[in-house]
């Protein structure tokens, strides 16, 4: 079971993940239309790139935009959640050992204590993101069952990983559950709206180009996000 999940199944997962992401990116850019979107992307590419960079960079910085500053609690939760979500699995020691065994590659790794803290950070922020959806009417009204499912898909590998690492009750059970949920997560990224993994950048680049080229970027100093 373990051999299969970390062998052929892992390869299949990565194939779906990477091809899905690449396909989404190509599909997105091919679907842009200067006339329907009303943005002259190509004739003013340098303004577009400037606008796109502003649009992405300010939004990648915690409290970098007025919106992030307006919702400080949400901003902390969102950044804590995503930083843990992205860095922990990539730089986890155990993952890099498997990577090295299977594919002969590995990355620098996080100290175990830090990885454990980041994992907890993901679980705790996921819990508060869940509460936030339930507690506030302005979030409840737009929340669907799908949103809860996706939150579960994203948090599950961290919960199971945490249990496995601390060998709670049955290590084997948590380990297998962790691998499966991790693979589900990776496959879900290109196939569900977790595709904002790449969609965030695509959409931000587009709107940045829109502001950079059409909506003032060629006359003003650029949008003050």
């Amino acid at each position, binding site marked *: 079971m373990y051999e299969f999940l970390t062998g052929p199944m892992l390869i299949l997962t990565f194939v779906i993940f990477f091809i899905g992401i690449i396909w989404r990116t190509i599909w997105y850019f091919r679907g842009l239309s200067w006339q329907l*979107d009303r943005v002259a992307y190509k004739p003013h590419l340098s303004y577009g790139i400037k606008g796109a960079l502003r649009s992405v960079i300010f939004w990648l910085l915690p409290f970098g935009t007025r919106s992030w500053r307006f919702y400080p609690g949400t901003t902390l939760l969102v950044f804590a959640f995503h930083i843990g979500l992205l860095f922990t699995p990539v730089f986890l020691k155990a993952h890099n050992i498997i990577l090295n065994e299977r594919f002969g590659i590995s990355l620098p790794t996080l100290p175990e204590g830090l990885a454990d803290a980041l994992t907890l950070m993901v679980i705790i922020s996921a819990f508060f993101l869940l509460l936030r959806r339930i507690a506030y009417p302005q979030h409840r009204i737009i929340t669907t069952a799908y949103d809860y499912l996706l939150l579960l898909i994203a948090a599950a590998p961290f919960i199971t990983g945490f249990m496995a690492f601390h060998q709670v009750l049955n290590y084997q059970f948590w380990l297998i559950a962790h691998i499966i949920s991790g693979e589900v997560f990776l496959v879900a990224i290109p196939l569900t709206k977790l595709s904002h993994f790449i969609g965030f950048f695509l*959409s931000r680049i587009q709107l940045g180009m829109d502001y950079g080229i*059409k909506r003032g970027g060629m006359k003003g100093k650029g949008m003050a996000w």
Partner: protein
Amino acid sequence: MPEGKLCNRTPVNTEEQLHALLADKSGKQYYEEMNHLNVDTKALWATIQKTLKSRLKTWLEICAHCGMCADSCFFYLANKKDPKQVPSYKIQSTLGELVRRKGQVDNAFMQKVMDVAWGKCTCCNRCGMYCPFGIDMGVMFSYLRGLCHSQGFIPWELKIGAGMHRIYRAQMDITTEDWVDTCEWMAEEYEDDWPGLTIPVDVAGADIMYTVNAREPKHYPEDLAEAAILFHVAGENWTVPSEGWEETSLAMFAGDWEACKLQVESVYDAMKRLQAKRMVVTECGHAYRATVIEGPYWAGLPNGQTPIPSFHYVEWVAEALKSGKLKIDPAKKIKEPVTYQDSCNYIRNAGLKDAARTIMSYIAEDFREMSPCKEHNFCCGGGGGMNGLGRYRKERNNGLKVKRDQILATGSNLVVAPCHNCWDAIRDLEEVYRVGIRWSFLKPLLISMIEVPEHLKPKEE
């Protein structure tokens, strides 16, 4: 029942159709007919498939339902944080649902969509600045208005407005003759006070081609005279075109893209015909947005630019003040606290905030910014056509509260509002809420405080 006599899928292209609609007071019969208008679901879905591309599809799909757009919307704030006013909810329950059902929707659904697209959104695009993914719901509502228009579900006034553009190339029934007469009349009217004042029509090769909002010749012709006076004092070599002088676009508010194209092309034709060095448009936000920002795309100009460089009035004023073409008498500067209404259409959506600040630094001693301001300012409450829609008057008046409170918080009683929609909305908010504020375009303020060179003054009798 299929299509009605007044409410149908056919745009207004003749004066006869237009008069029939105008005769239907407040659109009573029009809205009654709308209750029976069927939805051509096949055509609707075909249009969606052809025009809903990766940008809009991605926006609809990846919305994380995080709710960060909620507080960006002035309707949400004005309606005591009613969750049904959250922008994400508004677009997901209309356009989102329409796409999920593959266009298989009925009359009741389309009427609901219309009521949201025009009655709960002014397409101010503020939400797009607060969404981490950059999902611009104003853009989506504008797109949705186009879909509604194609199915005949549009507010009565906008069917008329778009029809006006189709027939007269203006938002009102003003013929070329009416326009030229108004120019002559205004020049004559003010000639005594301003010797040598003219409104030159169709002069080729001028430095500036000036264009207006049809309301000016129709209802406020003195605005045209004021523009002439300021150009005159500044020593500008300017002209107005006899045709292609109207920059506004009720067609844009209606989502009638074909009429939008017809309208802006009339202005672009004038630009090409007169070969002025540049174009300057009057103090109107959506006119600039329609003709300068969006128009080139409707007209299919791949570089996204108008045929000659185009400027909003605030850009010209800022430049004239900086270069000294217009000089302000320091004794006549505005002494009282004064604030500035940043128009969504030329500030947020066209980046002209600095021109506005330059002007205020020259004319006001106690300029007070609204909070928030510049790109982040709230819509006046009357944008996107909302000022003119009887069906949504209650919603509009309620929404004005946000602007009211913003103005009051500055402690100023005077609002400079160089945008017709903002100007109207602020006038109406004073009428509704009686808070004791005044509002003004730039032109009358400037005329009251400029230094007039001796040779331009009337000779003493």
